[in-house]
């Protein structure tokens, strides 16, 4: 049986599951607040690749990321988790490139390394590179299967996957390899229980980085100069004023207004509740009463 080469696309994202407070001018998020992590869906895809490799013994995994130093760290964690090789693509002209340019760069890597199966997460936590896999697949002329719940089997140059459709429907798809499969995150905490020797090896080995010229691309084709979509400005989202904390009514109107504008509103978010089982149950019932989720 031929060796199966699996490539996993890894994107570094800003952890946007926590509040990202804006700077004093309210223009952009505070840089200290933005923590770069591996896109959870991509990490899940890597775990799927590792499982797949465990099932079929003759296969190897290469992790591919596009980005600067934060991408390098993400890739090192992928190596620690068990990927055989890592490849970083970065070029100064990619900083301002659009999704088409970045997709072409990834496509160039994929056409050169000719993996049989390419995995990535479906969706991207911070939405910045969410189109990347699709664009890369089309630029490389690969089939693209998004919204995959699980991979059933990979054999004889075919992959059988289960796709999620609307209203809980599922479809089983057979796709001819090479193909790019975007896997939906199943939830749960991403584990990073890499063993220590693997971790040390991952953080001591040199990490190759390919620029556009190594990939036979030019800044005009893939970089910022070729970008058809340009970012003019990024602004933080306005907080969802779900539960405004009412300021003290005894304050003068001007101060009340300043309180509201400055932080009197709490952004809507998940809540970790603690307490005795009775208190927890009460809080959950209260939550369902106040939120229009189910009728109680």
């Amino acid at each position, binding site marked *: 049986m031929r060796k199966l080469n699996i490539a996993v696309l890894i994107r570094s994202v800003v952890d946007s599951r926590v509040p990202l407070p804006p700077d004093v001018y309210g223009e952009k998020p505070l840089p200290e607040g933005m923590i770069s992590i591996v896109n959870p869906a991509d990490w899940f895809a890597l775990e799927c690749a590792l499982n797949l490799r465990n099932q079929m013994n003759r296969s190897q995994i290469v992790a591919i990321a596009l980005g600067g130093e934060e991408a390098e760290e993400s890739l090192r964690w992928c190596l620690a988790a068990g990927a055989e090789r890592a490849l970083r693509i970065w070029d100064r002209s990619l900083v301002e490139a659009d999704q088409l340019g970045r997709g072409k760069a990834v496509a160039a890597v994929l056409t050169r390394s000719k993996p049989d199966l390419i995995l990535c997460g479906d969706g991207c936590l911070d939405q910045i590179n969410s189109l990347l896999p699709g664009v890369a697949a089309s630029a490389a002329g690969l089939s693209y299967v998004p919204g995959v719940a699980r991979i059933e089997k990979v054999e004889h140059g075919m992959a059988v996957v289960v796709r999620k459709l609307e209203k809980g429907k599922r479809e089983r798809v057979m796709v001819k390899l090479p193909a790019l499969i975007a896997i939906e995150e199943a939830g749960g*905490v991403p584990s990073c229980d890499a063993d220590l020797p693997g971790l040390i090896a991952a953080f001591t080995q040199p990490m190759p980085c390919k620029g556009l010229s190594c990939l036979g691309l030019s800044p005009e084709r893939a970089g910022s100069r070729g970008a058809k979509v340009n970012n003019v400005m990024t602004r933080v989202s306005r907080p969802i004023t779900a539960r405004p904390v009412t300021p003290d009514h005894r304050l003068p109107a001007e101060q009340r207004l300043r309180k509201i504008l400055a932080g009197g509103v709490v952004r809507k978010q998940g809540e970790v509740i603690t307490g005795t089982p009775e208190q927890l149950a009460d809080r959950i019932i209260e939550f369902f009463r106040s939120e229009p989720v189910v009728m109680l």
Partner: protein
Amino acid sequence: MVDISQRLKFSRYRLDRQAHIEVDYVKCRRCTHRACLTACPAQCYLAHAENGVLFNYEGCLECGTCYVICDLGALKWNYPKGGCGVNYRFA
């Protein structure tokens, strides 16, 4: 009283499935002062009718006050798994 959980909502946590501090409630029942209820800066210890205290590890700030203050040795205190627990961003 200040509801500290409202403030902890702004902090970044990565929760482990396993609690990093284990409380031996048998020993807690013998405790006379129950100082952990008030000493914990994250309100992780709550009063409980049967055991005296009830510990929730989720909001823990890993400061160690409970460990230092407990004189019955009721705590199996450790740091959470690598990368888990609270991650400060502005401290």
